[in-house]
């Protein structure tokens, strides 16, 4: 029977740099492609509601402000968002997606109302030469 087999491993770490970081003062970088919070480019959005339909957490709400103007309001409820980025995948705009994810991860706050983000925008017209955006068939092309 061996005794104290862990000893060399323990002593080796005594003067090594700790594996943990002093978090609130020192932050680790998140990798490229980290899924943070979704946000909208209101100038590209064609208001097809594909993201609203596919969002598993029902965190996206799009309402039409007035019939004549094609004015829409989009609210992202970040307090419900599960950061799956399905809205980015579902977004049919090409080549630039109207929905994108940022890299923020410190989302805690004292009031859930501050987590709602809101955009009021005029619907962008799909370009003629681009493929007509059909809301019924959300493309499942992978994100880069």
């Amino acid at each position, binding site marked *: *029977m061996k005794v104290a*087999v862990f000893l060399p*491993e*323990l002593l080796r770490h005594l003067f090594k740099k700790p*594996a943990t970081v002093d978090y609130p003062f020192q932050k680790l970088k998140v990798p490229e492609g980290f*899924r943070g919070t979704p946000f909208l480019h209101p100038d590209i959005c064609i208001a097809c509601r594909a993201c609203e339909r596919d969002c598993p957490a029902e965190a996206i709400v799009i309402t039409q402000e007035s019939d004549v103007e094609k004015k829409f309001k989009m609210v992202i409820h970040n307090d419900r968002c599960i950061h799956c980025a*399905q809205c980015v995948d579902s977004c049919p705009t090409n080549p630039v997606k109207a929905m994108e994810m940022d890299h923020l991860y410190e989302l805690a706050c004292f009031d859930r109302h501050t987590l709602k983000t809101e955009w009021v925008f005029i619907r962008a017209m799909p370009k003629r030469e681009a493929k007509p955006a059909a809301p019924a068939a959300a493309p*499942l092309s992978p994100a*880069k």
Partner: protein
Amino acid sequence: MKFNIPIGPQHPALKEPISLRMTVEGEVIRDADLRLGYNHRGMEKLAEEKNWTQNIYLTERICGICSHSHATCYVQGVEKLMEIEPPKRGLYIRYLVSELERIHSHLLWLGVAGHEAGFDSFFMYTWRDREVVMDLLEMISGNRVHYAMNTLGGVRRDLDEALIKKILDGLVVLKQRSEYYFKIGASEPTFVGRLAGVGYLSKEKAIALCAVGPTARASGITADVRRDDPHAVYDEVPFDVCTADSCDVLGRTVVRIKELMESYKICEFLLRNLPAGDIAVKAPKKAKPNEVVSRYEAPRGENMHYIKSNGTERPERLKVRAPTLANYPATIEMLKNGFIADIPLIFAAIDPCICCAERTVELVNARSGEETVVRFGDLRKLAGERFAKSPVKRNAVWPF
């Protein structure tokens, strides 16, 4: 003198709510009873109201540790229902993430076993090294816990050369570390003394009580869905099914460490033979009326989903069987005649992942010593009374 000890629903040894009630004599357990239902979220009902795409993320949230397992099990079933065949590269990446998840889950379990046995250094070291695989998963998928890699018809993100290199490097580090733990953990006398002979489950009992996963394999049953019913890529990948014959917690530890080694091999194989091509095909919105049983070997054992479609965008029925539920009858058997000191170890050895039910409170009334089941409504009333009598008035009011 016999008395009842409640372990849970809230207890430091349990990371999730479940209630174990032990009848003990001195330090020896004579009987055990299990009460579920503290974490039921009604997901099977909810799944009937969501469309096929939304349900991927719903099934992913059944569990935090084996999130990819449930999503993969669901997705491979739905792909059969929709009659689509994902491209090879997509499948390879999907099961690469599966194996990485198995690695992270087993490393997590090793740490938890160390913690339950009071060996905190082992816990800290394994969890430090688990960060390596967590970082890899974050780089691949963009998140540490809910990878969201699956989509109907393939995966959502591709791997490039630099990332493949990083994963291979990470695997080398992990392999070294695991071999070290295997050597060290198996020869630290206080640790082995706590694990050996604890939680005995004979092979006959394991078969009769339908144990699955490492719990069954540690009792000498060579059952592994990856080999028995190869799903997707597993008939192309060489690997061994790891078993042990000691039928105790030490055996379960050994099986998990061996499985870690196998998973490193599988990951390497998948990365070195990664085919070129697309990673996903387009999936239809609806599925024809049909039914499918999808099986998947999760880190904790066999995962089974039964999916029935009715021609609409939504499933008619989604039944989920998580491996932990299958291991509960065996756990009760293991606990009998053990020591109080071994409860957390035995219970942790099935790697419980409690994703079941909610809303009841069972407690021993400390004043009379009688065991009563207090209803949630009554408990809230009691809390209200306590609050009304309390000398300090808080001005914040709970909104419900």
